């Protein structure tokens, strides 16, 4: 019903969909910026829109992230602390050094706390960047080469 003729949804349609679905539970609905990020994470054809299958995948993933976040948000404040973000990221299978973790915490925390929308934004980008890196590091050396243009597109 939201998608229209082409069967694709844009960022603001995604935002409407997710808000109406109540997937964020008791947390604030997603910002438009986060929705834009979600679309570009799954956007293979560079159309800046998302189709139904991609939406289904996103749905699953979002549920998982919300559960993870809620498990750390014990006081139900809608935020988690820096070290809890670190634990959440590790629990999702990322094995990152303290420096990288610090960088991520700095980027996503406001007054030392991370809100749900920002948490999701962080997870989306971690996943997208990891995919992009893997695509470049085909021989699994742990290193990959990028040029200036690539890094800006991925940012």
């Amino acid at each position, binding site marked *: 019903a939201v998608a229209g003729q082409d069967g694709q949804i844009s960022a603001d349609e995604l935002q409407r969909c997710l808000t109406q679905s109540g997937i964020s539970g008791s947390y604030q609905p997603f*910002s438009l*910026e986060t929705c834009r990020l979600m679309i570009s994470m799954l956007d293979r054809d560079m159309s*800046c829109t998302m189709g139904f299958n991609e939406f289904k995948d996103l749905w699953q993933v979002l549920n998982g992230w919300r559960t993870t976040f809620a498990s750390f948000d014990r006081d139900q404040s809608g935020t988690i602390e820096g070290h809890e973000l670190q634990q959440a990221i590790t629990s999702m299978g990322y094995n*990152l*050094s303290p*420096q*990288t973790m610090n*960088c*991520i915490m700095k*980027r996503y925390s*406001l*007054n030392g706390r991370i809100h749900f929308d920002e948490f999701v934004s962080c997870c989306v*980008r*971690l996943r997208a*960047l*990891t995919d992009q*890196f893997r695509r470049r*590091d085909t021989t699994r050396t*742990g*290193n*990959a*080469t*990028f*040029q*200036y*243009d690539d*890094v*800006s*597109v*991925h*940012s």
Partner: protein
Amino acid sequence: MATEMFEPGPSRLPVPAAFVCEVFKALWHIICVFLPRVDKDRSGVISDSELQQALSNGTWTPFNPVTVRSIISMFDRENKGGVNFNEFAGVWKYITDWQNIFRTYDRDNSGFIDKNELKQALTGFGYRLSDQFYGTLIEKFDRQRKGQVAFDDFIQCCIVLQRLTDVFRRYDTDQDGWIQVSYEQYLSMVFNIV
């Protein structure tokens, strides 16, 4: 494609003596008139949302919140998530500088900067970028979906480009436009840019 990169950005603007008088006048205006209007909850700190409401991007849509965040974090010395009066003076000058730049390059006065005008602007700042890259930039930053960038998106584009250049340069020691990084270096790099 290798690109040569130079030092860009409004921080390089000259500061003539006459400007100091202007700043003084402006600060007085800020204290008496502007600040009370912007700091709606009278907390003494201007938050992201208060600044966002005070700014216009030339359309009826809210000012890009990501740009607001970038600007506030640039001037927020204490990581409090907002700016106090002293810091706000810096914010205001920063935005005024960008307004002047935007007006300079929006040659047809459309209120938007199209691909050609963007090319002029960034070349003026010292960037040497491919034509295709300009298309990518517009695609990435144009939130209005007009194929041109509004004032807030233009600022965000320039901020990100400057960060990208700074960070990339740190890794590109032989300056050939290519870098080789580990997974974690890649993550840190991108999270530092935007």
